[in-house]
């Protein structure tokens, strides 16, 4: 008989060990899956997890790691505050889009002026765009008690329609021969978020690292982080400690929205370059996985963002080189979250093997 027994307090060791165990289990089960598809499991796993870093073409893939990882980390850091406090912003994708639109609109309005103030203004506009978009579910929740999960998620689809309309209408490139999509901001020096394109370094990467440090300090040293953690664990105790639940909802929603908006702005002004119909590729949703994979801990999120970016890039390599279907790679990414949640039980419970004796 196998029995689960609740630990008197969470195991410190397992808190760190479970993500690693989950990755290993994913590799094993993913390998079995690939073998069942008739591929060599070892080669496939190596292609996905190691080739982006160590193959002969790694010089091309490594910058990609920063480009793909930065928005994931930036968004996930914002989400982690809300998730810790029990506030479920599922609509980061929408806030990411609106942040990109607002930031890009500011940049495009100044085209072709060159000034060092343009980019900071765009950053501000991007953050405000995401913030305002996140305030909609936030204020509705506080004022009318609506469910922020549903409202924030539905606003993603509204944002996608807004994006299409912008790409086809207001922000369309007047010199674009009627094709949808805005001017390329990456080629407009005053508005570009690139620092060094050859190594994948842009301001979004810098912001992601800054966000990690700020989040770490806030959660471990500041009373705000303490209140966030408290509100998530025991809402009543948080009230007793003087936390205003409505204010906390607005702060957490606003923070995650602003960071998602920033991520959108850095993306549109750099790697993506322009506002287009298919500008968003799901960073806002993947960031939810990254946040949980990283245990809602800033350092964990940094590592998880890297890992997630790795499987994206590795997955692309596996698709093109080994002919692996995209669905198989997505399944493996799903497995990662599944195993993480499953082995998570070990943090709070201990497994006991032994036969139950009849009384």
């Amino acid at each position, binding site marked *: 008989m196998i029995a689960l*027994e609740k630990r*008197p*307090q*969470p195991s410190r060791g397992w808190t760190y060990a479970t993500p690693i165990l989950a990755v290993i289990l994913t590799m094993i089960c993913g390998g079995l899956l690939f073998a069942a598809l008739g591929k060599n499991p070892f080669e496939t796993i190596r292609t996905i997890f190691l080739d982006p870093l160590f193959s002969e073409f790694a010089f091309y893939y490594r910058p990609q790691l920063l480009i793909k990882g930065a928005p994931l980390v930036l968004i996930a850091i914002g989400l982690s505050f809300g998730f810790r406090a029990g506030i479920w912003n599922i609509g980061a994708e929408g806030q990411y889009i609106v942040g990109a639109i607002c930031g890009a609109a500011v940049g495009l309005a100044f085209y072709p002026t060159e000034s060092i103030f343009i980019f900071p203004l765009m950053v501000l506009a991007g953050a405000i765009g995401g913030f305002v978009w996140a305030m909609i579910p936030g204020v509705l929740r506080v004022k009318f008690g609506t469910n922020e999960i549903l409202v924030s998620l539905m606003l993603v689809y509204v944002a996608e329609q807004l994006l299409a309309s912008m790409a086809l209408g207001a922000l369309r490139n007047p010199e674009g021969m009627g094709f949808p999509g805005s001017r390329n901001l990456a080629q407009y020096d005053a508005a570009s978020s690139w620092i060094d394109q050859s190594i994948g370094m842009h301001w979004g990467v810098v912001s992601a690292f800054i966000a990690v440090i700020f989040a770490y300090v806030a959660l471990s*040293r*500041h*009373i*705000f982080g*303490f209140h966030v*953690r*408290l509100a998530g*664990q*025991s809402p*009543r*105790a948080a*009230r*007793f*400690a*003087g936390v*205003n639940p409505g204010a906390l909802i607005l702060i957490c929603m606003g923070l995650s929205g602003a960071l998602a908006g920033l991520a959108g702005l850095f993306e549109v002004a750099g790697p993506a370059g322009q506002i287009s119909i298919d500008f968003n590729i799901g960073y806002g949703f993947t960031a939810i996985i990254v946040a949980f994979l990283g245990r809602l801990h800033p350092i964990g999120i940094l590592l998880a963002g890297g890992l997630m970016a790795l499987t994206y890039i590795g997955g692309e390599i596996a698709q093109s080189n080994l002919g692996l279907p995209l669905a198989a790679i997505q399944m493996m990414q799903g497995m990662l979250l599944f195993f993480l949640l499953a082995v998570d039980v070990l943090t709070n419970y*201990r497994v006991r093997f032994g036969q*139950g*004796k*009849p*009384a």
Partner: protein
Amino acid sequence: MNTPLLQLSGLTKAYPGVIANKNVSFDIERGEVHALLGENGAGKSTLVKTIYGLVEPDSGTMLLEGQPFIPGEPRAARAAGIAMVFQHFSLFDAMNVAENIALGMENPPPQREIAAQVRAMSDQYGLPLDPDRIVGELSAGERQRVEIIRCLLQDPKLLIMDEPTSVLTPQEVAILFETLRKLSAEGTAILYISHKLEEIRTLCDKATVLRMGEVVGTCDPRATSAREMAELMVGSTLHVPEKPERPAGDVVLTLHGLSAAAPHRFGTALKEINLEVREGEILGIGGVAGNGQDELVAALSGEMRVRAAMLHYKNRDIGRLSPNRRRKIGVLTAPEERIGHAAAPDMSLTENTVLTAATRQELTSRGFVHWAKARAFAEGVIGGFDVRTPGPDNAARSLSGGNLQKFVIGREVMQNPDVLVVNQPTWGVDAAAAAAIRQALLDLAAKGAAVIVISQDLDELMEIADRFAALNEGRLSAPRPAKGLTVEEIGLMLGGAHDMEVAHVAE
């Protein structure tokens, strides 16, 4: 028929790190009211859960009427004639009494039949209860009657009652005891778990005392003093709190016509509460749970704001200040619920210190928490209040109820409050810890603080309070000096404050 109803022999149950029951053996006779005594964590709950089929013992046997008895689940125990009334009721507030009773049955008969059975039972055993009433509107005593009648409908041979009187008024206790005596006269055995030794002395035929999972003695409670039984439970001499005489000081806290709507559907509205609390006094507020205690505490702590001019601290209107602003000026609170309200279970004791002591102990500067300072304060509380834990880094949930309670009270007392409001300071706490907590409250008052103690334990209030008031349906009776109050007078204050108010208005 000389075989006892239930024979327990050598029952042992171990959990990781703790042996809950160790070789427990005793017999329960037919029609006997058998008390099970012990401090918190002595293994009483594990033992009754074993009998009720919720816990499987590691070793040992049970014989029911001479036959081996191995209940794999509560259903089997119920089928064998064992019924249990839990300390926490499992009733649905939104349903009526008969519906709630039907929910607990394997094959419920039609509603009308159940209602008839409930009426018959309540007449037979003197338990007044209307089967058509909604449970959410019932008092705690009435809810307990629902649970008892639910059990009695199974025609049990053994009725287990876990701390049944903790939520009752003295009058309700009297009704309950009458019922239990009637049941026992008809041959139903009763296993009665309680902390209240005087009750056991009036009700029970026999008592078995558990300490650290082992049977340490049996006694005839009618022939043993409460003090002797308490010492048997604790295993050492008991320290009785001393109440020094002291002059009353100035009024520090004034409640003036304090009214507030019920915060949620099954909450209680506070109605026109007038009260003055003086420096150096302990004001005891009695009353049955659910009569506005939680709401009064919330109004005093600042979790629930009240309108202007209703609440004054030294001539300052504090009714709309936040909890932390009140803490800053010296008004502190310790709520009833330890886990999830007074403390966060998964956080360490150091972190739980920051929960209420951040403002007053200056544990933060510009929002940044001084963890070393917080840890030192937590260590001070642990040392000062004899909290049994390896250290301040342990999670609150790893502490036993009594130890966490000592921590929660200690955390507030050591912040030197001018006004301290505590709700149920010794609820579910063993005798030695309860005495320590009461002594701490007395010492605090002796230093000049005004202390409001809200409790359902009348003995406790009589022991430490200078003045006594009763809370009933959100109204507070006028406080009277605690010295010389009789049980009858208190009972009237608890149950009758409302009626008196109405009569007064009618004049």
